[in-house]
Structures are given as C-alpha cells and as structure tokens.
C-alpha cells in the first residue's frame, strides 16, 4: 500500500478530533450513530444532496474561526414571557438560564448522564436513524454520537410559556454540537424558540416526537455573526391529528444548512415548515426538506423565501414523498427568491414522488427581481427608493412569515427583517 493508506480519510480525520461522551443511558445510541457515520462517510461535494453546498468547512476537523458581531440590537424574543435556557458556545450556562421547572413539562439535560430517562433513551437517535433513509444525513449521525449537551423535554400538558433556547457565541473558534430531544404526549402543546449565533461552527440536531392530537410550534432566528457556520437538523414524527409548525429566519452567516425531515405517520396530521432568509454578500443558505406522507388525509406545507444580494447564494432542496396508502394527501411546496442584483443566485430542486392515486400536491419555484412598476408606484407617492425597496422586500417575505401562528412572534420576526434591511441599504 502506498502513502494514501497511512493518511486518514476526511471522515476519520474529523472523528479523531472528537471525544464521545462515555457512560450513561445514551451510550448505546451514540455507538450505533458512530457506526452509521463510518458506514455513510461524511458528506462530500459529489453527494447528490451536497451539489449546491460545499460541505468541507462543516466536515473538516476544526471550525473555521468566526468573528463576533454586534449589531447593537436587543436580542430577539427578549421581552417575551418564556423559560430561557442558555448555552454559550454549546456549554450550558446555569446562571443565565431560568430554573428548568415549568408546569406541564419535564426538562432535563443530555449532559446529566447519571439519570436514566427512559422516554429519552427510547427516542435519542431513533428519529435521526430513521431519517437516514432514503437520503443519508451523516452530520446528524455525527451529532447523535458526539453531542456534548442538549435539552430533553417531555411535554405532558400545555405549558403557559414557550421554552426559549438561546445560543451565545463568545469564542471565535468554538465548535459546538448540541442534540435536543422533545416528546409531546397525546394532546400536549409546546412552543420552542431558538436564537443566537451559537458558535463558530454549530452542529445541532432536534428530534421531536409528536403524539396524537399534540401540537408543536417552533420559531427560530439564526443570525448575527457574519462568519458563523451551522448545520442543523430537525427530525419529527407526527401522530394522528397532530400539528408541527416550524419557521426559521436566517440573517447573516457564511454558511447555513437547515435540514428538516418530517414523517407524517398518523392520519390527518399537519406539518408546516417555512423559512425566510436575507443574505448579503458572503452568505450561503441551504434549506433541505424531506416530507414523507405515510398516513391518510395529512397536510404538509413548505414555504421558503430568500432575499439575496451582493453575490449571496440560496439553495432549496425540497421533497414530498407520498407513500402508496397515503390517500387524500394535501402537499404544497413553494420556494422563491428575490434577487436584488445580478451577482446573487438561487438554486432550487423541488421533488415530488407520489405512489398514492388520490392526492393533491403542488410545487413551485421562482426567482425574480423587485417589481419596477410597484417600485415606481410607491415612489410616485413619496416613498423614497430605499424605503420602497424594503417595503416590497418585506412583502415578498410575508408569505413565509405568515406561517407563524402567533401574532406577537410574527411581528417580532418582521421587525427583525425590517431592521436588517435598513442596516443593509446601499
């Protein structure tokens, strides 16, 4: 054998840089996940689902340093009634966090391995493992194997406040891996908020099991640091008449890959996933969604809007798979970009794979510029060019934001987008 044999493969080089937490109830799941990573190998450019997004900075042994950035804004969700759980560069900060007790919910931490939490042990890594077929997601398996912490949330009732996960970034070279597990019992309800740049490189996984009649809302704001990188996964499985609604706002960040894997397994379940992103310059944003309809009468919606300028890149890969017996499926998918200049690009790959015969599925994807007629109309009424452009841009993003059920959260998100646009006026 030549020199190549003595060199570590990219996957092994990455694994060599990590320590797997030992002991405790999650160990078996972690070992299995590690085996999955080794079997799949970490993503490479030639992989079908990594054609539009370079995985190298996400898979290399260490994080590319990311400078901290302060826009001088009050953090999002700041004034809201909520239970906050704070991580700094992936490390739990007990002083900044609220007491983890809330009615209708039991919250534990993944890092506290001494407690054997049966429900979490049965769930940790299982939705991720199930989500590896038919498209592999090695970064999620890597996460299951090596996550240093995360929250385990068992929802039995309807807590009065959302749980707010805040990810601070303080160390310019931090490389954080967090894994959250959430289980909603039948009829339970929970809203989870997430915000913050998290780390120079952030690998985050969230598994959400939603039992019959339960309802899960998720609103996330990713942003702030221009140089941060993130690969995130949501894996969710929905029971009968349950609801999953997730919205993500992304502003800033050189590289973001958000994957969402949804499995509708109970009849008449509803899953909505939406995203709005605003990118300026060195910004690459990838939404990769896979929705499997495996029950009767389910509804799924994907609504993604991207505003791109100064060479920013947006990617959308969205798939709806309707299995043979998933009759009366209602699937909707739209991905649109507003390209504010000729240097920016949007790459979209919508996919439908349908085996049932009584379904309604639609998908659409568009790229466009600001509507000059509308712009002139606004200006002719006295609205200055920059302000008119912002108004039209917010109008473009509105369809995604409208997917957020809660009005206060909708306004919070819209306010952030408006402030971002104002800061980025040319």
């Amino acid at each position: 054998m030549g020199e190549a044999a003595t060199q570590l493969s990219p996957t092994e080089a990455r694994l060599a840089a990590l320590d797997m937490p030992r002991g405790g109830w999650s160990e078996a799941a972690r070992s299995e996940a590690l085996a999955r990573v080794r079997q799949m190998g970490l993503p490479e450019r030639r992989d079908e689902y990594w054609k539009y997004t370079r995985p190298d900075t996400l898979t290399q042994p260490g994080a590319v340093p990311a400078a901290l950035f302060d826009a001088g804004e009050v953090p999002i969700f700041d004034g809201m009634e909520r239970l906050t759980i704070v991580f700094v560069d992936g490390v739990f900060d007990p002083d900044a966090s609220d007491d983890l007790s809330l009615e209708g919910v039991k919250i534990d931490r993944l890092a506290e391995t001494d407690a054997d939490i049966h429900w979490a042990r049965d769930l940790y890594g299982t939705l991720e493992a199930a989500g590896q077929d038919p498209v592999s997601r090695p970064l999620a398996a890597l996460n299951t194997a090596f996550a240093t912490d995360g929250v385990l949330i068992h929802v039995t009732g309807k807590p009065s406040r959302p749980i707010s996960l805040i990810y601070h970034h303080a160390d310019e070279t931090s490389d954080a891996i967090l894994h959250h597990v959430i289980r909603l019992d039948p009829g339970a309800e929970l809203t989870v908020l997430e915000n913050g740049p998290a780390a120079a490189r952030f690998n985050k996984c969230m598994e959400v099991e939603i039992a019959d009649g339960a309802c899960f809302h998720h609103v996330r704001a990713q942003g702030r640091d221009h140089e941060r990188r993130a690969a995130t996964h949501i894996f969710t499985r929905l029971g009968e008449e349950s609801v999953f609604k997730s919205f993500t706002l992304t502003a800033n960040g050189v590289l973001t890959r958000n994957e969402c894997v949804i499995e509708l397994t109970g009849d008449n379940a509803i899953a909505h996933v939406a995203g709005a992103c605003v990118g300026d310059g060195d910004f690459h944003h990838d939404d990769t969604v896979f929705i499997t309809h495996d029950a009767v009468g389910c509804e799924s919606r994907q609504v993604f809007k991207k505003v791109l300028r100064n060479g920013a890149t947006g990617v959308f890969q969205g798939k709806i798979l309707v299995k043979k017996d998933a009759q009366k499926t209602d699937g909707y998918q739209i991905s649109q970009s507003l390209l504010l200049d000729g240097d920016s690009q949007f790459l979209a790959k919508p996919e439908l794979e349908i085996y049932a015969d009584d379904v309604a599925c639609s998908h659409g994807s568009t790229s466009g510029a600001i509507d000059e007629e509308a712009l002139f109309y606004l200006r002719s009424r006295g609205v200055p060019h920059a302000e008119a452009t912002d108004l039209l841009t917010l109008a473009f993003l509105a369809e995604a934001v409208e997917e957020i059920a809660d009005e206060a959260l909708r306004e919070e998100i819209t306010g952030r987008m408006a402030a971002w646009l104002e800061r980025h006026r040319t």
Partner: protein
Amino acid sequence: MLSIKNLHVKLEEEDKQILKGVDLEIEAGKVHAIMGPNGSGKSTLSYVLSGKDGYEVTGGSAELEGADVLEMEPEERAAAGLFLAFQYPVEIPGVGNMTFLRTAVNAQRKARGEEEVSAADFLKLIRARAKELKIDAEMLKRPVNVGFSGGEKKRNEILQMAMLEPKMCILDETDSGLDVDAMKLVAEGVNALRSEGRGFLVITHYQRLLDHIKPDVVHIMADGKIVKSGGPELALEVENNGYTDILAEVA
C-alpha cells in the same frame, strides 16, 4: 402652479419622439383638461411629469412653483406636491393599503421637514376620507389594489390624493374602465378636493368625465403637441364631431 415650456420627450429604448414641444400653464385653483386621440402623447406627458423611467427629455422644461421637476426623483416630485392618479393603478401583494398610505404620508412630511402624523390621527383622517369615497375598512386592510375592481382601484387613487393633499394633481384617464355610477363617485371625490391653492390636469379620451369635473380650460393634444385650447365648449365640440374636424382645422 405648473409651467411646461416647449417640452420634447422621446422613448429611451427606441428613437421615437413622443412629445414635440408641449406648452402648458396651469394656474392654482384651475382645472385644465387635455383631450386627444390615442397615441397623441397624453399619458407620456403624465409619466414624464411624475418621473417614470424609460423617457428622455430632449428639450424644454417643466416647473412646479418655479422648481425644475424634471431634475427630481419621483419621490421628490411627490413631496414637492405633484400627484399622478394612474390610469392603471399597480397591485402590490403583501403591502397593506393602510401601511402604504401611512408610509407615503409620513415620507412626504419628513421630506418637507414636517412632523410625522401619529397612528391615531392618521386612522381618524383616513376613515373619514374613505367614507366619503365609499371605501370600506376591509379595502383599507387589503394589500394595495390586489383584487380590487376597476372602480375600487380608481377610488383608491382618489383616496391617496385626498390623504396626500398635493398641490398639483394629474389624473390620467381616470374614467377608463368606470361605469357611470363609479365615475360620478370619483368625480365627486375630485371636486371635493378642488381649492384655491390646487391645480388639476385631467387627461381624458372622452368628454363624459368633464360633465362631472367641470374644467376651466380644455386643450386638444395631437401628435405630441397642444394644437388647440379653449373653454369647456371645446370638449363638447369633440364629443359631437370627434377629433377629425378639429385636427383638420388646425392642420
């Protein structure tokens, strides 16, 4: 109020002269009407005055109270008091009518160094004005012009005019696509805004709008020029005999 002298305009894209020396003086408090056959340059005049892209001024001038409007950005023209009621009002999905109007009113006030109007005062004012134009609260909440009927769109233009209180109003074929009742409503809205300090330029193809908005002066435009001016009786002449006779007479 508005002084147009020997205005020459061509299309930017093609080498085609549209306006070939328009002269027009509109005094404050007066309503001038421009009539003319299709392609005579009526709408081009309104677009050039409001600052739409795609036109090149090759000669002449246009001044609003002594200020050169042709040098201004569209929003500056609006803040200076110029208003164009569009022949085809633009639909803007995602922008609420109310938000749009408040943004416009406050942007103009800001540009003129005036204080912004409060949300409560604005609401009170717009409700009163909307009521006069039979625009219901639902229409104010909807996205700008989206799903509006032809008549609703034109009434919305007049509502904007009422809220922005411009000095010089240009109405570009506001009667097009309106039935008699809708036209009366729009005309009443315009008449309510007639005042000593405000000038109007009403561009129309037909005389019927001028039955409701009585002009002080009527101009006939043909081939990029004003070829004849007179009193309201000129509009009746057009109605009775068409443009052919007048054009033959001035040729």
